[in-house]
């Protein structure tokens, strides 16, 4: 084989640049041993816990928007029988929360308003008049229109599910609320016989304000998401009128909250 001097010179000139060329960045590596893998997993988990707990240390304000649905319920006052319809209404709440027990538990305080709540009223005078006149058939009512709203103050304790870094939590709350309604108009009661013919129609006007306070217990579940747990969404159920014979599941809420602060 004949070696050409020009070829040797060319090879010598190119050799350094070939050596400096960046090869593929990939190369084989040893698999981690089970013990090393266990250490990596434990270290990553510790980091995850630390990152999750950090935003819970300082108190944070939050705004909560929700849709609340109620069961139909009647409330009696001196001047009227107030009926809250089975209805839904938007609700807004302002809250303050703070973590405790190294992020495992969280305390929260909420002040909320829900409105407008569809309701109606039957004046006490009409109710008394109807009691004095029996109806052979069925009574049909057209209640006086009312505009209702609920104002509430509640305190919650929330616990993370499974571990403290979990985005899911369950909570228990206790609160006071007041359902108020402004009533203005006339209510009508019609006695309809078995053939569907209206026999007797009575009406009475009512103008006033009715208020119904309630003690409530809440059960909730929520999910935190976003950087530094900035948002959460959840579902809350309220057992209302605690300590009265009508105590029971009164409402439910689906909420989204924005937490601001450090």
């Amino acid at each position, binding site marked *: 084989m004949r070696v050409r001097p020009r070829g040797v010179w060319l090879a010598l000139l190119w050799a350094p640049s070939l050596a400096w*060329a960046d*090869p593929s*960045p*990939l190369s084989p590596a040893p698999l*981690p041993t089970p013990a090393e893998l266990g250490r*990596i*997993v434990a270290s990553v988990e510790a980091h995850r816990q630390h990152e999750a707990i950090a935003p819970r240390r300082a108190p944070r304000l939050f705004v909560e928007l929700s849709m609340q*649905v109620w069961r139909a319920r009647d409330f009696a006052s001196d001047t009227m029988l107030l009926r809250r319809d089975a209805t839904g209404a938007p609700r807004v709440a302002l809250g303050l929360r703070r973590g405790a027990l190294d992020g495992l538990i969280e305390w929260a305080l909420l002040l909320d308003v829900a409105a407008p709540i569809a309701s109606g009223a039957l004046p006490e005078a009409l109710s008394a008049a109807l009691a004095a006149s029996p109806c052979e058939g069925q009574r049909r009512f057209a209640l006086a229109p009312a505009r209702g709203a609920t104002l509430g103050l509640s305190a919650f304790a929330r616990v993370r599910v499974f571990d403290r870094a979990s985005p899911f939590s369950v909570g228990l709350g206790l609160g006071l609320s007041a359902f108020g309604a402004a009533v203005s108009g006339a209510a009508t009661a019609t006695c309809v016989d078995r053939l569907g013919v209206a026999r007797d129609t009575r009406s009475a006007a009512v103008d006033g304000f009715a208020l119904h306070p309630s003690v409530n217990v809440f059960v909730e579940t929520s*999910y935190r998401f976003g950087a530094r747990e900035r948002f959460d969404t959840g579902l809350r159920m309220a057992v209302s009128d605690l300590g009265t014979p009508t105590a029971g599941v009164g409402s*439910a809420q689906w909420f989204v909250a924005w937490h601001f602060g450090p």
Partner: protein
Amino acid sequence: MLAFVLALAGCYRWEPVALGPLRAGQDELRMARVRLARPAEASGPAAAVELIAHRVDAEGIEGFAPSAARELRWRFGPGDRVSVRRPDPWMSGLAVAGVYAAVLAIGWIAVIEDLPGISGRP
């Protein structure tokens, strides 16, 4: 568990990672799925790989490559693009909020509206 469910539902996104803080050990990428890419340049060929990161140091990153079914090391170079797969906060929030909203809707029908056949009433 949750990460697995959210990944199945597609509720994740690829977030770019700055090379400087990563090499300085300020970013925790271990056990995360990492995408590494080197654009084609005069200095070398283009390359890309996806790894489940196990070891990260100033010089490179080591992890299991599902496509090659073996452990590989990626040596950092200038111009490398690194991104990590993390749960998408908005998509995961929407998915969970959707489940909660559905529970409220069913609860409304069953308990509050008290519909026959659904709420246990004949």
